[in-house]
């Protein structure tokens, strides 16, 4: 039966054909269903062209949301030459609007490239120009949003903030450290094109750019502005080489202001030397602190019970002999007989040598270590230094003596602020920080919040802390810090005058770092203010004369910015012979002549008019005037 063999073979072939069809169908199913996503996205990128839409970089905000680093938006012209139909007409109109020659513009519109940017005439377009180009409505002519970093306050906080490069990428400071957060994701205008690059009439898809996250600082811009202004003035006035200022809340570690001079404008950082833009002196520079370091020696001595600052006395002859070497007090003739409180007020070096000797090197250096000297504070900024402290094994009597009054050690400004904050904050040390949190830029919702970090506590007894604060207040009221005294407020502080070590390893002549460490309110400090001026000229080389007044201005601003209430409990000011005493004028209007004269004791009175009663007074009541000033009374 050959017929059946043939038919069987036909059936066999038919089955083979059906099988191959099934394979093809399975293959198509695999391509269209299993591989769908992969192939679709590949094909999508083949069909579509993306015009980039730049995302805003996240802003850097102060603690109250004021913008320290923001963005400016501009438009730039982008051409897609294959889509431009009437090249002559487009070139002519664009050339006219942008003020470019027709020939040049024609080159742009007919260039053989997928996307052509008109540089530089087509960038940074003003709103009006952009509007005109938009109104032309040509195919293939696009305006793209571009965004650029802007620093509205120019040099303010420059070392902390850092700067960005040409592509808005963070290159230093917070801009670099938080670049990941600050950088947004660019969006795009996506349009479909055919294989030859012509635009298809499918709708464009706009992917909106995602702005970067905002960085919220602990910095108070208003206070920062005051600090910068004061330091700038000092730099100019004293022709100084540099200056540092830090304001910190000792109870949290929040840095409220931080400035290093010379500073730079991040918008054109290229114009400054590498040293200027890269060194945040407040955390980088380490130097001999001088007398501000005595706060630590004092705290250690009180805490260890080796001194009673009120009862114990010391006779300062102007020098002290330590294992064969003679150490001098800054006052050549010496301070004479004094209590240890007065030793602090006078910043008497031999007195502190004695405190150091009473402590012994183990105890003093234990406190140096406890309060973080010789280590980084861990502030959330790049470029912090450790400072240099003697190795305990190498400390002899002389090293112990100099360390006690702040010589022979090297510390950073932030390290000192950190230590003093812990001392006045009852021995609780918080890590200094400048970034409070990271938030979404459009909603302000915090995505990350950084809380104060308690590093250690009970470093000293509360009583010790109280006594040190009292001593510091006394320094300002009665001693070397009097230039920082603010009438009606409680200010504490300590001056510092440190000789600088030159490149040859020896102390430089006549070149000092003049500093002041202040606290306010002195009984319960909420602000630690540190000011240091490096290499000041034309001035008496004492911290009390240069840095204390700067600190005072800053603290005055703190009083008004934070509405600190006056505190009548403060120590009254004692006056030096060359200083004027101020009197608040009482109201004498309506009194008779003799009553008024008694009230205005210490002032020179000039009468005008005749009669017994005071009709008016000049200056008016409640004005503060110098002792002995003239007060005019009109009688009737």
């Amino acid at each position, binding site marked *: 039966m*050959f*017929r059946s*063999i*043939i*038919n069987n*073979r*036909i*059936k066999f*072939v*038919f089955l083979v*054909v*059906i099988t*191959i*069809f099934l*394979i*093809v*169908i399975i*293959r*198509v*199913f695999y*391509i*269209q*269903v299993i*591989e*769908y996503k*992969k*192939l*679709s996205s*590949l*094909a*999508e990128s*083949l*069909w579509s062209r993306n015009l980039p839409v730049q995302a805003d970089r996240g802003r850097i905000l102060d603690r109250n949301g004021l913008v320290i680093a923001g963005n400016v938006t501009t438009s730039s012209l982008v051409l897609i030459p294959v889509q431009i139909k009437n090249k002559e007409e487009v070139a002519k109109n664009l050339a006219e609007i942008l003020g470019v020659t027709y020939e040049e513009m024609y080159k742009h519109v007919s260039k053989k490239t997928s996307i052509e940017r008109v540089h530089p005439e087509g960038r940074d377009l003003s709103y009006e120009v952009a509007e005109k180009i938009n109104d032309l409505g040509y195919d293939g002519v696009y305006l793209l949003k571009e965004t650029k970093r802007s620093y509205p306050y120019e040099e303010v906080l420059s070392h902390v903030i850092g700067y960005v490069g040409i592509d808005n990428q963070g290159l230093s400071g917070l801009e670099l450290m938080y670049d990941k957060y600050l950088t947004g994701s660019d969006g795009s205008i996506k349009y*479909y*094109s*055919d*294989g*030859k690059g012509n635009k*298809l009439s499918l709708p464009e898809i706009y992917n909106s750019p995602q702005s970067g996250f905002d960085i919220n600082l602990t910095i108070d811009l208003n206070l920062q502005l005051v600090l910068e202004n004061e330091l700038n003035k000092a730099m100019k006035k004293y022709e100084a080489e540099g200056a540092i200022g830090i304001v910190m809340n000792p109870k949290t570690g929040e840095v409220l202001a931080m400035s290093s001079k010379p500073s730079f404008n991040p918008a054109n950082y290229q114009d400054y030397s590498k040293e200027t833009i890269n060194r945040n002196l407040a955390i980088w520079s380490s130097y001999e602190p001088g007398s501000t370091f005595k706060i630590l020696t004092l705290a250690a001595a009180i805490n260890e019970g080796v001194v009673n600052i009120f009862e114990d006395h010391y006779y300062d002859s102007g020098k002290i002999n330590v294992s064969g070497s003679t150490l001098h007090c800054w006052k050549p003739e010496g301070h004479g007989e004094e209590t240890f409180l007065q030793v602090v007020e006078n910043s008497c070096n031999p007195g502190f040598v004695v405190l150091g000797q009473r402590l012994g090197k183990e105890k003093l250096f234990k406190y140096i270590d406890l309060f973080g000297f010789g280590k980084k504070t861990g502030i959330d900024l790049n470029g912090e230094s450790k400072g240099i402290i003697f190795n305990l094994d190498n400390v002899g009597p002389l090293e112990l003596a100099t360390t006690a009054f702040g010589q022979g050690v090297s510390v950073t400004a932030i390290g000192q602020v950190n230590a003093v904050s812990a001392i006045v904050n009852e021995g609780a040390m918080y890590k200094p920080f400048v970034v409070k949190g990271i938030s979404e830029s459009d909603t302000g919702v915090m995505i990350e919040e950084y809380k104060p970090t308690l590093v250690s506590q009970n470093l000293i007894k509360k009583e010790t802390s109280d006594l040190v604060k009292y001593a510091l207040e006394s320094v300002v009221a009665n001693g070397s810090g009097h230039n920082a005294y603010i009438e009606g407020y409680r200010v504490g502080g300590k001056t510092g005058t440190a000789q600088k070590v030159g490149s040859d390893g020896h102390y430089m002549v006549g070149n000092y770092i003049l500093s002041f460490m202040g606290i306010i309110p002195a009984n319960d400090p909420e602000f630690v203010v540190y000011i240091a001026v490096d290499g000041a000229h034309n001035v008496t080389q004492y911290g009390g004369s240069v840095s204390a007044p700067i600190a005072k201005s800053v603290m005055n601003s703190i009083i008004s910015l934070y509405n600190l209430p006056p505190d009548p409990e403060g120590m009254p000011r004692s006056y030096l012979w060359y200083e004027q005493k101020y009197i608040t004028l009482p109201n004498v209007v309506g009194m008779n002549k003799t009553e008024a004269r008694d009230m205005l004791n210490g002032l020179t009175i000039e009468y005008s008019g005749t009669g017994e009663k005071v009709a008016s007074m000049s200056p008016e009541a409640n004005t503060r005037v110098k002792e002995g000033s003239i007060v005019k009374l009109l009688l009737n």
Partner: protein
Amino acid sequence: MKDKILKITVIILSLFGLLMIYSSSYIWADFKYNNPYKFVINQGIFLVIGIILMHVVSKIDYKLYKKHASIILLLGVILLILVLIPGLGIVRNGSRSWFGIGSLGVQPSELSKIALVIFVSKYLEKNDKDKKMTLNFILPILLVIMFSFFLIMLEPDFGTGMVIVLSLLVLIFITGTNFTIFIKLGILGLIGIVLLVIIAPYRLKRITSFLNPWSDPLGSGFQIIQSLYAIGPGGLLGFGFTSSRQKHFYLPEPQTDFIFSIISEEFGFLGVLIVSFLFITIFYRVVKISIDKEDLFGKYLSFGLSFMLIFQTLLNLAVVTGLIPVTGVTLPFISYGGTSLLVSMIEIGIILNIGSQK
């Protein structure tokens, strides 16, 4: 008994093909000829002629072809030789396989398909008694087939050549002749391929590039990648009629070899299922006719013609979906091409006549 289902299926499939030619070609047609309807009008004319021809041929007694088989083959061979002569034959896409008549073209290799199937069917019927003596039975007809293949390869048109040779081998296979000869032929073919690869190793790379077209995306992998970019995004239901993206100058000449990619893109997996179903229906109806046919010549002729169509279909689908390397064959009834459509319609006409005779 006329096979209405076969006839209607063929007409539905070719009408659908006409729509797809419009959809896939209007971009290119507008670009090249400034007339988006250029291809669809041409093909429309051929379709009308084709349907008429199918009808006419279905009335012609197929036994007539048996009588004139030798003359028909001779004519076919003469045409295949003539087309190789420069001046007579026109080169298109690198092959001298066209006679030009105005903007229309005629492909003699398409015409020779019918001639060869007729001749081979007649030979197989005539020598039916000898089919046990495999070599004697096969050798003479193999020589005829290989000679035609040789002529077609001179154009060169590898795709059509392969369709003809393999279809005729399958036709010989169904006569019931010794199975082992085909295994031997297959081994011989494999040895030939291995030899070709050893002589020129780059061929292996070309053969394997279809496995991973992305290894050479701008060269040998280009067409298949573009095809996958059409098929893949089509998904289950496709972008819809005329909404293909790949026809916008991405897939080259989408109205010919790769029209199935555009179908997949516009109608998705569902469209693919429907088109496959229509092709299977056609083949199934013809296979039924062949099996029912008592007359050996009619049996062979109907099966041979339909297998040639379905084999070309599978070859095209396998290429388009990246299952085998690009061979350059069109999709019967659907791809743009006048001669191909007319020949297909004539073949169906012949089959219809075979089916209509008891």
